[in-house]
């Protein structure tokens, strides 16, 4: 009867790299899309705001698991056979994080006092200049801590990518378990690796929050 060995541990660590990679894709992709949606959400044009709100509602109201299934099978249906799992997983997680990041960032932008918009407007700055030169630099300070906090959610949620056959940390744990059947040991190790990935992030988020809450600067 084979037992849990260094080889298995190495395999799990290798899979953890894919978890990190997938998290990075989800964060960068979700950040780019989410930033656009956050701006659309505060647009001066009504229908743009409505579209952005609808997008956020739909994404936030759909389980990530279902999003992943939809992309995995959906892409195949529109003609691309043999979708690489990383592509479907990356896309699903991107959409998922964009829906949440957009709403987090919208809140941060709106928490900059209205009088700052007004002061910039009275100095004859265009709406875009007001946003980029006055509001966003202040909103970014507010946004740092909750954004890093959300990063923890992304890392943990990449585990769902296993359902479309993507071998990241959770899926690797399942594979090892299928061969040696020591579920408790294996999933304890898997949980420990997740913790090692997430703990520094949440500590960082907390320290950022403390630092940035002192004064407005």
């Amino acid at each position, binding site marked *: 009867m084979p037992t849990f060995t260094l080889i298995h541990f190495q395999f799990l660590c290798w899979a953890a790299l894919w978890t990190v990679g997938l998290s990075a894709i989800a964060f960068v992709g979700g950040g780019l899309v989410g930033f656009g949606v956050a701006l659309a959400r505060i647009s001066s044009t009504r229908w743009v705001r409505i579209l952005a709100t609808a997008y956020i509602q739909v994404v936030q109201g759909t389980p990530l698991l279902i999003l992943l299934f939809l992309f995995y099978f959906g892409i195949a249906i529109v003609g691309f056979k043999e979708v690489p799992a990383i592509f479907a997983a990356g896309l699903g997680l991107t959409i998922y994080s964009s829906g949440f990041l957009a709403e987090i960032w919208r809140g941060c932008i709106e928490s900059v006092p209205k*009088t700052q918009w007004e002061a910039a407007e009275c100095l004859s700055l265009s709406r875009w200049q007001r946003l980029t030169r006055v509001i966003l630099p202040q909103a970014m300070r507010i946004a740092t801590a909750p954004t890093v906090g959300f990063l923890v959610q992304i890392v943990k949620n990449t585990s769902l990518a296993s359902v479309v056959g993507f071998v990241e940390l959770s899926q690797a744990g399942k594979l090892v378990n299928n061969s040696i059947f020591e579920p408790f040991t294996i999933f304890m190790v898997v949980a420990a690796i997740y913790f090692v990935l997430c703990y520094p992030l949440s500590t960082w988020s907390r320290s950022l929050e403390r630092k940035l809450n002192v004064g407005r600067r």
Partner: protein
Amino acid sequence: MSAVVSLTNVEKSFGAVKVLNGVSFEVARGEVAAVIGQSGSGKSTALRCINALETIEGGQIMVCGHAVHDPKLDKKTLRRDVGIVFQSYNLFPHLTAEQNIMLAPTCVKGIGKAAARDLAREVLARVGLEAKADHFPEQLSGGQQQRVAIARSLAMQPKLMLFDEVTSALDPQLTGEVLKVMEDLARGGMTMILVTHEMAFARKVASKVIYMHQGTVWETGPGAMLDDPKTPELRAFVGSGL
């Protein structure tokens, strides 16, 4: 004497509350007009209408040749001519005093960084704060922040300056330093409209006092009008204030 600002029968409501009920007054070039009145008399709203921060429902407002009541008004060009200073300073907290001042000249007028920095030093000197150029707003006292805010407006070389209760958040000593800057500006020939509760300052510096009551201009006159009010409302207001 040409009017820099003229309001004619201006009307404005917030919901069911009529805040401005046919306000008319004129301010000529180089004049310093002090708008006084109780809280809720519509004086701050009138000031904000001049700068198109509020849209009006009736009447006409002409400011430096711009038809402010016109829905097709280009607000950006209006605001190159009109500076405004707020009660709560509204400096940009992520920028130093100097950067606060440089922002609009570089963004709006396309002035180069070096020239904008010279300009910032010059206007900071006018408000007596050249030593604070590299300080962030939170490192400055309320009075200093307000003087930086005045300098920030001056850097755009406006033809008209609006002051919205700029000393209301300050203690008497800090109020004094801000009022001194405003007095210097007035002496330099700047056209100014100030909403204020500083009666002594209004009497001393203003060439015209506009007393607003219940959303209309109740009484207008020179600073000395405060010593000899014609209407019982102004008499009561001045009596309670001094």
